């Protein structure tokens, strides 16, 4: 069973940063066949935290790889309570965040969802279709339950908006590295370091860049500015293509090694 108090994602990321390291938060789609084994493999390969996706029928922030994995997971019967229930029975020793779309949370009930997260040992939520304008109801429930809410900041966000975003954010602040949806890219977008730098200027929260971080080289490059990275599509593609926890751990390990070497 998980401890009564979930491991804090923010504390783990701050600790990594204080020790001079860079943070690695892989993403995987919950509910894929064998995903619990993948989670353990990712945890043991050097992740500082793990983002578990709860698949939604209409993921507008996601590109083809995560769309496909969501459809596979839904076809395999994935549900929000099923995934949270499975997490409550796992003890993977790294802090967890759930990433999902707001309708699943709204349908579940904001307060009930936040309470279920805590019971499942999940410390943070990432809801990409809940910007500041709509964050009030969810954040009230999350704050009351002690759940961290990671807000997204985008290259299009004006400076004054970044200040409000980091004020509202906890866990870390998710810097969207490019204009676009999730997916692998051949090279690091110039916007990735720019948004990371802009955020570093206004917050002490860990600044992690996600969307378009596809290779260890890109991760190292963006971490010249950022505190860490979220790696989604590259990990999910490996999961879907190989179905092998060892292969997935090996991939995550290459990111870990590269970030450790700098």
């Amino acid at each position, binding site marked *: 069973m998980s401890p009564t108090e979930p491991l804090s994602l923010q504390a783990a990321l701050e600790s990594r940063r204080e020790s001079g390291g860079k943070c690695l938060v892989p993403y995987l789609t919950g509910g894929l066949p064998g995903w619990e084994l993948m989670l353990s493999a990712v945890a043991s390969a050097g992740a500082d935290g793990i983002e578990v996706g709860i698949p*939604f*029928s*209409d*993921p*507008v*922030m*996601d*590109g083809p790889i995560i*769309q496909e994995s969501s*459809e596979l997971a*839904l076809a395999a019967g994935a*549900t*929000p*309570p099923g995934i949270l229930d499975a997490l409550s029975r796992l003890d993977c020793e790294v802090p967890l965040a759930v990433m999902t779309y*707001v*309708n*699943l*949370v*709204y*349908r*579940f009930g904001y307060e009930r969802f936040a309470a279920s997260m805590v019971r499942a040992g999940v410390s943070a939520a990432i809801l*990409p*279709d*809940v*910007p*500041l*304008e*709509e964050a009030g109801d969810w954040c009230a429930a999350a704050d009351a339950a002690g759940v961290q809410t990671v*807000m*997204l*900041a*985008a*290259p*299009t*966000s*004006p400076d004054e*908006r970044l200040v409000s*975003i980091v004020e509202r954010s906890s866990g870390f602040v998710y810097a*969207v590295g*490019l*204009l*676009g*949806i999730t997916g692998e890219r051949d090279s690091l977008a110039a916007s990735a370091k720019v948004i990371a730098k802009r955020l570093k200027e206004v917050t002490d929260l860990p600044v992690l860049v996600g969307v378009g971080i596809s290779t260890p080289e890109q991760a190292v490059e963006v971490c010249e500015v950022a505190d860490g990275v979220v790696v989604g599509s590259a990990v999910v593609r490996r999961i879907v293509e190989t179905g092998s926890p060892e292969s997935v751990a090996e991939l995550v390990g290459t990111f870990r090694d590269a970030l450790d070497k700098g």
Partner: protein
Amino acid sequence: MNNDLKNQADELAQVFAADMVGAPTGVGRFGQFGGMFVPETLVPALHELEAAFKDAWADPVFRNELDTLLADYAGRPSPLTRCDRLGEQLGFQLYLKREDLNHTGSHKINNVLGQALLAKRMGKTRLVAETGAGQHGVATATAAALMDMECLVYMGEVDIARQELNVFRMRLLGAEVTPAVSGSRTLKDAVNEAMRDWVGTVEHTHYCLGSVLGPHPYPWMVREFHRVIGTEAAVQCRVALGSDHPTGRPDVVVACIGGGSNAAGIFSGFAAFPEVALVGVEPEGGAAIGHGIPGIVHGMKSYLMQDEFGQVSEAHSISAGLDYPGVGPEHAHLADSGRARYEQVSDSEVIEAFQLLSRTEGIIPALEPAHALAWVVREKESLAGKNVLINMSGRGDKDVGQMMEVLGDQL
């Protein structure tokens, strides 16, 4: 429109603007519905769009440019037709607001000309759009051709197959048509693809959303661009009903509902008058208000067909234009407040109505407004003796191929 009618319309428009279907409150709220549930990347663009729309809508130069296009290019005002043969058969006075006679064949052109002009004014060079039946896609492709803009239309793979004529029209007009291959491969998925496109192209692209759907300011802005339907119809009804009619207004106004843009347009002309019943007609297989519960998708909180966990259901309707599991947030609010009611009709009732109007009035309706017609046919006894106005939102040419498969052997 002659000056007298125009003045009356302006006067009425001011009355309406103050009541019922006014501007949303807060961040695009109609009651509890609406909002701006989108990725952060798009939020600044939506604020920019809201500001640009407010500015343009208050600018006589913009309004005049749009009015001129609507008149000289789209063919407004659209006529009001009294249907004597069918009215006699059904036992009430039936009027059709003839949006089917607009350029490109539906009401969609009103919104698209407005948005394309606005996009130009904002310095955007490219339009993306979603389309279901293809009418909004054709209208967007048309506006893009007229205004020399690049245009990409997302359309569900299923809809591409059943509306191939409109696909060809869009390509003929110079637009690119890209299939949406995820999910139900219909309108819902085309919206997803258009939003994903926009997340990556927002700096130079305007998302020309085709209904009173999506994040603020779209539900409000699109309704304002269609308000012309209701404003004209209010004036035309007053003339048609004659000076001895006590109010000069119909008893019932009926429109089909997918996202709800044609209904929002015509309702806006009558919502301020409580004696006018407003009826939205949904397809049985895509009845967000009839069968849905509140949910959040495509940037808005509204009624939504979904499963117990909140996964969005796939709609199933004979009409590609109404094949959508959600509905515009203002309709959700009008339903909750009781100002409008929402009814459902089956595909088979629609097929009957499609033929009925063709045979009795020589008007082949699109399958979408055939839903409104199907409801008044079913309700003919309760409507006896009344004045009934239907928004004939589009013409049936696009549906003839599909209906040949359904009816071919019977005719």
